[in-house]
């Protein structure tokens, strides 16, 4: 915005306020609207609810996580390799997000109707991503600050660490911009994912040959050049390594030159509006991006940015005219034979109404059926890891990697398999309403359906619970009986957790109860049962449990500590039912609305999780009616 623009804007604001002040009626109305808008405590309150426990836990475990972790075991090089991977992720993330904003954004939706130059769109998109990328400073400051603290560096060392952290951010921006402009087909998502996975895997197997790997990273990865200067040049006194700063400066300079080029060459050929979705800007940039390896690896992500199918009305009309003659409407439901075996099986336990409800709430998704075999295969494949790597080199205790892989695959199935699109609340006409709320569908019947499916799936998941139990029990020499007991505990936790799953799903469709003292308990209940609210709740429960146990044990009150442990255990076990009952009460008593002014963070998170995985059946195109 130029100074003239700013003056014009100030002048407009001044005149508008004068016009409001001129009339007492207008002023009263203006004040009323402003009172409704200005609620300074509204936003900080949920942030504080989340941030305070997270901060407390982070600070409490900071020393344990970092000191006894990477640095103690592997030294500064170990920390800086991770930082290099994270900054590579930041640079690739910058490229991916800039591409996305140049293709579609809320901002493009607005500007597509206005006479705004393409140059200006490119500049503002870049500016927005650059502002967000400042988050990349956080890990750099964290890692380099910790190294400076652990190496007991003086003020000069701290200043250099700070400068290197800021330079990391600039290199990430420069690299990201270069990739977008000079190499649009660069598979940024794939590289980012694989670099993080490679580092995680390398550390899991005990980081063999660290000095050599560190040198490779310092040489080959742009984000590593600055780390090389810090680790080798400053900490180890190898003066010649400071020359690594030269390519870093070149990358930053080239990045800013690329920004100018981006403004010059970014040209929108046209816009496409996707109903209920977004405005898509067609440009050469997107064409190049679409041909990258990322598209093959992440087809579902690209699907959101793809144009609607180019079928004209005439083509559809010809196709449908024949269809109408051939069949009647009542056969429109997907053919039973088209369903996967697990889906067919689970429907044997559902009533007709529940089956219809399942179809609607999951939008005919059979994702769970498709994912299940893969997850079973992964779980079987990791069992031999215990024989190959009974323990991780350089670490005491059993190898926990197979357990973690099984656990993550289980969580993946749990998250991706539970595609309940009916809870989704798209933002339309200034409000978010969950889809199910517009149809005669009740709270209890959805809950019953979800519990019924969970019971059915618990049976199918039994082998997986046993595999998880095997990972836990086998390394410590447990018997088959022990494995069965632990497996049963996992199954119980899975079933008990359904209360939370249902409570969270419903809670995220609700608004926050009114800010009145009499409604305070409902506000807390709503906050605690949402996606974001559950995180501090888990942390608080952990803190209370651990600190309570430690204090009671130190005070020598062993019996009280046992009782406390049992009590807390019972409370945690009962919490899913309590959460479900609370949300049910909010729903039934009309304490909350099923309309939100804007989507909640939790709702957005759940929706994005659900949209990332599609059934292969749906991927082929619109589901066809029965033959």
């Amino acid at each position, binding site marked *: 915005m130029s100074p003239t623009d700013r003056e014009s804007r100030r002048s407009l604001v001044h005149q508008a306020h004068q016009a409001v002040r001129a009339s007492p*009626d207008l002023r*009263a*109305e203006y004040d*009323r*609207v402003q*009172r*409704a808008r200005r*609620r300074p405590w509204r936003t900080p309150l949920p942030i504080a609810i989340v941030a305070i426990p997270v901060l407390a836990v982070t600070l409490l475990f900071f020393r344990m996580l970092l000191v006894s972790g990477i640095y103690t075991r592997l030294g500064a090089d170990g920390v800086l390799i991770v930082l290099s991977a994270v900054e590579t992720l930041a640079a690739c993330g910058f490229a991916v997000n800039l591409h996305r904003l140049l293709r579609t954004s809320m901002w493009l939706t607005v500007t597509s109707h206005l006479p705004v130059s393409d140059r200006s769109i490119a500049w503002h998109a870049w500016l927005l991503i650059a502002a967000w990328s400042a988050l990349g400073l956080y890990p750099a400051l964290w890692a380099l600050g910790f190294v400076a603290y652990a190496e007991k560096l003086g003020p000069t060392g701290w200043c250099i660490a700070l400068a290197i952290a800021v330079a990391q951010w600039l290199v990430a921006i420069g690299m990201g911009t270069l990739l977008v402009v000079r190499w649009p087909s660069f598979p940024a998502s794939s590289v980012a994912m694989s670099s993080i996975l490679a580092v995680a895997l390398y550390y899991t197997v005990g980081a063999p040959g660290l000095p050599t790997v560190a040198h490779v990273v310092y040489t080959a990865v742009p984000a590593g050049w600055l780390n090389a200067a810090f680790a080798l040049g400053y900490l180890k006194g190898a003066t010649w390594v400071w020359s690594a700063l030269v390519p870093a400066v070149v990358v930053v300079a080239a990045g800013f030159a690329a920004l100018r080029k981006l403004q010059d060459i970014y040209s929108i050929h046209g816009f496409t509006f*996707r*109903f*209920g*979705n977004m405005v898509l800007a067609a440009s050469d940039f997107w064409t190049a991006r679409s041909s990258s390896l990322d598209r093959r690896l992440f087809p579902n992500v690209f699907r959101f940015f793809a144009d*609607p*199918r180019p*079928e004209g*009305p005439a083509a*559809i009309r010809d*196709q*449908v*005219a024949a*269809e*109408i003659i051939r069949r*009647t*409407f009542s056969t*429109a*439901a997907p053919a039973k034979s088209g369903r996967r075996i697990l889906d067919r099986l689970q429907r044997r336990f559902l009533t007709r*109404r529940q089956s*219809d*409800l399942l*179809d*609607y709430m999951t*939008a*005919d998704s059979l994702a769970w059926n498709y994912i299940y075999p893969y997850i079973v295969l992964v779980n079987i494949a990791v069992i031999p890891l215990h024989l190959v790597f009974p323990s991780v080199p350089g670490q005491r205790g059993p190898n926990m990697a197979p357990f973690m892989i099984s656990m993550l695959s289980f969580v993946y199935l749990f998250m991706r398999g539970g595609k309940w699109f009916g809870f989704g609340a*798209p933002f*339309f*006409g200034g409000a978010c*309403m969950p*889809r199910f*709320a*517009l*149809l*005669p*569908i*009740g*709270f*209890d*019947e959805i809950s019953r359906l979800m519990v019924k499916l969970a019971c059915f799936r618990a049976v199918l998941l039994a082998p997986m619970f046993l595999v998880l139990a095997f990972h836990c029990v086998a390394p410590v020499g447990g018997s088959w009986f022990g494995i069965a007991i632990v497996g049963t505990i996992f199954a119980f936790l899975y079933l008990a957790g359904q209360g939370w799953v249902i409570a969270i799903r419903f809670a995220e469709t609700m608004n926050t109860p*009114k*800010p009145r003292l009499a409604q305070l308990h409902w506000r807390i209940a709503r906050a605690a049962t949402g996606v974001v609210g559950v995180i501090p709740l888990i942390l608080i429960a952990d803190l209370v449990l651990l600190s309570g146990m430690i204090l009671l044990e130190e005070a020598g009150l062993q019996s009280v500590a046992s009782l406390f442990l049992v009590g807390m255990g019972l409370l945690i076990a009962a919490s899913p039912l309590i959460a479900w009952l609370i949300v049910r009460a909010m729903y*039934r008593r*009309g304490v*909350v*609305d*099923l*309309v939100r*002014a804007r989507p909640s963070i939790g709702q957005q998170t759940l929706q994005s999780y659900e949209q990332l995985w599609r059934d292969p059946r*749906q991927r082929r195109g*619109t*589901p066809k*009616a029965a033959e």
Partner: protein
Amino acid sequence: MASRSTPVRISLRSVTKSFGPTPALDAVSLDVEAGEIIAVVGMNGAGKTTLLRCLLGLVAPDSGEIHYDGEQFHRERLDLRRRMFLLPDFPLVYPNMSVLRHIDLVLCLYEADRSAADERVIGLLREFDMLPYIDAALGTLSRGQAYKAALAALMAVDPELWMFDEPFASGMDPAGLLAFRTHVRDALRRGRTVLYTTQLLGLAEFADRVCVLHRGRVHAFDRIERLKAQHAGGATDALEQLFAQLHEGPS
């Protein structure tokens, strides 16, 4: 259909709803007889949409009661909810679902009598020019076409109470709007009750009675002829004059 097919009578008693300090509905009391078309008109922020959302249970009133045929309504009364529908100006549909599949699921969830509904669906799709799109994904349609698909589904259910939020600003083409009006009139003959909101005063005259909401309060609720007689001596632009007064007058 599983529910009773008798006309539904609506009664609102001092229904109040506010969002923060802003009252959306302020002690609204209304009685709607069965088999009437009611147009709810009002300026932006008058509370029209909130009123419809309260009637469906999407929004919970702060105080007051809603009764259907004398029975108190809340959102878990599925028996009552099967007797009504609300179609927002932006229909909530699954973008990846085909038109036919959407209609099929809506009929199932309303537990509609399929033998009668299927015929109605074909007729409705034909009248709304939607037959060519029955297998098209809803996300690939224009807003007006998606609205027609959602409308056909709900009209095929044919419950006792029909509610529409801004149907005349839904993106439907003139043929679609004509078909819509024809079907609403037919529904009235079958004893259905229809409520719709609109900003277009000319289209309020399509209704039997007009409810004028202003800042959450019922400013007027009467037959269009009587409103005209009361506010502008029967002039044709009586509603426009009424709104001009509301706009200029003190709150």
